[in-house]
């Protein structure tokens, strides 16, 4: 039986009727038309679908939309403010932290939580924090550089 959910996505209120089995990622992509979060595995291993739920990085493919009822979601589309890129987005750009770009939205949001929790992470802490986000293109080195650069900029 369908249920009505009401939630905030990127600061905007949404209310929709959904099947309980509707995965949050499908809700975001198909009902809210936010296609930034991606689907790349079915086993909760790749992190491409990562969004922030009440400020914490979560895998939206491993959550039902009904679980997000009443909560706040941030997707990659909501990260830049007034057209100004987030320092992490800017750093990923400067440091060539992406190639095909498919993992990038999830990667950035996971890194976002890291910098919220730990504004000055070591290389090892960066690598550990993004272990749930697979990237097949970059070998991660430029991603680590990007997160470091964003941290340095925020600290400067």
């Amino acid at each position, binding site marked *: 039986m369908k249920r009505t959910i009401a939630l905030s996505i990127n600061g905007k209120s949404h209310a929709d009727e959904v*099947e309980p*089995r*509707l995965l949050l990622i*499908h809700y975001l*992509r*198909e009902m809210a*038309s*936010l*296609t*930034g*979060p*991606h*689907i*790349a*595995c*079915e*086993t909760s*291993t*790749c992190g*491409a679908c990562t969004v922030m739920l009440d400020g914490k990085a979560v895998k939206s493919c491993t959550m039902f939309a009904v679980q997000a009822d009443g909560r706040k979601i941030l*997707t*990659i*589309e909501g*990260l*830049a403010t007034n057209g100004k*890129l987030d320092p992490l*987005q800017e750093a*990923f*750009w*400067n440091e*060539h932290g*992406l*190639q*095909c*770009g*498919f*993992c*990038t*939205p999830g990667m*950035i949001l996971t890194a976002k939580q890291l910098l919220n929790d730990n504004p000055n992470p070591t*290389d*090892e802490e*960066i*690598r*550990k924090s*993004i*272990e749930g*986000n*697979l*990237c*097949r*293109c*970059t*070998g*991660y*080195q*430029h*991603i*680590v550089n990007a997160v470091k650069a964003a941290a340095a900029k925020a600290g400067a």
Partner: protein
Amino acid sequence: MATTTTKPETLFGKKIRRREDPRLLTGTATYLDDIKMPGMHHACVVRSPHAAARIKSLNVKPALARPGVTAVFTGADVKDLGPIPCGASLPGLRTPHHHILAQDRVYLVGHPVAVVVATDRYIAADAVDLIEVDYEVLPAVSDPEKALAPGAPAVHPQWPDNTAFTFHQEGGDITGAFAQAEVVVKQRITSQRLIPTSMETRGVVADWHAGDKSLTLWSSTQIPHLLRTLLAGILGMPENHLRVITPEVGGGFGSKLNVYAEEALMAFVSMRIGKPVKWVESRRENFLCTIHGRGHVDYFELAARRDGTMLGLRLKLIQDLGAYHQLLTPAIPTLSVLMMPGLYKFKNISADIVGVFTNCTPTDAYRGAGRPEATHGIERMVDILAAELKMDPAELRRKNFVGKDEFPFQTATGLAYDSGNYVLPLDTALAEIDYPALRREQQQARASGKLMGIGLSTYGEICAIGPSPATPAGGWESATVKIEPSGKITVMTGASPHGQGEETTFAQIVADELGVDIDDVVVVHGDTAIVQYGIGTFGSRGTAIGGTALYYALQELKGKVKKFGAMLLECDDVALAGGKCVDERSGKSVPFAQVAAASYRAMKLPPNTQPGLVATYFWEPPNFTFPFGAHVVITDVDRETGQVSIRRYVAVDDCGKIINPLIVAGQVHGGVAQGLGQALWEQAVYDENGQLLSGELTDYALPRAHMMPWIESSHTETPSPVNPLGVKGVGEAGTIGCSPAVVNSVVDALSHLGVRHIDMPLTPEKVWKLIQGGRA
């Protein structure tokens, strides 16, 4: 008209941040699954759980009864469509008829049996479970060597020996080389099956327009134009009624250099239901139904003199082809043969390939495609020879390298290496790590019971694939450059990049050649209705061939611009700089926009000149390019657990001239990650019955951030004489250079225990067992 004197800085060689990134960073790029169309249906494919079986019966009625299900199609519906094509031609090649959906038999797990079409992807998924298929399970074979054994189950009953082809290539005097040899080392070396695993799986949207009998097909592919040509053949429709578009492509690594059943199937479905239809591959489907890479069992024999002079190499190569030929399946091992001699000057080789059918996913081009296997082989054999001769492996390599004055160098496999200085990256890398000091440290480590290894790989590769005679579909690339009436520049390239950054590097080339602001350039690709024609991005060819086509198109265009510029400035010749045509004698100039406007307005034309500013160039390369490099890896092996950790990874690559160092570094890092994945973790494991046991990302281990070492990457630059840009290509270098360096390093760490070889992946248990005393 203004005057100008400052010469603009060139962008060639500069770290320019990528122009494709803003859309990717903000989640606004459009990948295949982001496409949404009115009335769009969703398809889900019913697949065989068995590796070999006869379909006794198939009942689709319960699925059709599910509300929301529009149609179900089975093998009978598509039996008259053409087969999935194989582009490789080898003498005597046996090619099974590759239907889009199984007819009465399935040949591998994941074999498509039926397709369900519904108004919603959830309903389609539900309906798949309602399709009843009754299988008579047949014996299967998943190991290529077992498939060759007498009495093995026949993958295709018409060919009981499971042999798709045999191929022999010989150069020089191999018998003589082995007769002269003072030492011969032999080793069986495997390159395990790998799953390419682009982060975006494949996907197709097909939209049939009955009114004009045309079809638009979006596919996450590396080869939109070839796909269109081949798909038109499968569907039996005129090629010019078919438009193929690649949206943003989330990685390919060779796995999207293909024509797949689902591409034809979605076209068929859309034509039948009269609505757009979308299919997006699940990860498990990606593991089962998208090509795999490698799958070699190689028997090498290397002949040498006691002084280390290498004389000749013999190879028996058993290629696991899988159950079908995909686009290039049988051709991939022939690339291995070409690359067999590596960077060494011996001129006697002999290779025998046996292509073997197994009830497994077809193998095909995966990053490196045949070259990593060959490089792994020769670089392991050189180390094995060094151990046999008790020579330093670096010294042995130097002794046998093709000398820097010997280019172009004709190899025994028929190639002409374009340019090189092979000692340079090796010496640079060894200096970087202080090789003598490390060898001393290694002695001390051994004395105290610790295991550390130093591994070298001096690799070569064949890039810029390739000249048309060597490439099944043609090996050229094309570019069109257009200066729009407003003076802005649009490039249309046939190379269809998907992460390689050509929107940036190509714009750099344009900006330099035309002397314009890079922001005035837009690079368009991946739409057969817009782009002239092209081959695609694979085989490290995008920049070396696509970039060169662009370069030549620009030369033509420049000629025309100059004519209009000179006409406007009323002089004989002009230079292009700062977005202007400049009369260098008078210092007068005219901006591009004005030149372009004049060319389109065409009030007055220079003599023998057509209106408009457009040039198209199809460039046929005269040769491949041959990048090279040296990777040095220092490993520590945990004696108690067999766990390998990488202390340092030094890569010195020579990919010719570098247009954008940022992008080149990214290619090296990503390549190394995939090489390291093969060396240490990745492996497609089938059980005896053809079940893929490493069937999800929870079992198939891709490198994660915390598993990767810091890669110390630098370059030497030996320009290629093959193209005017001097570029060679870098997409596959890291992958090719990496795995032998890692394995050589670990074998080196264990060599004093009597270990001579370890097959990949170097799992801790495998290494631990060798430490326990098992020789390999």
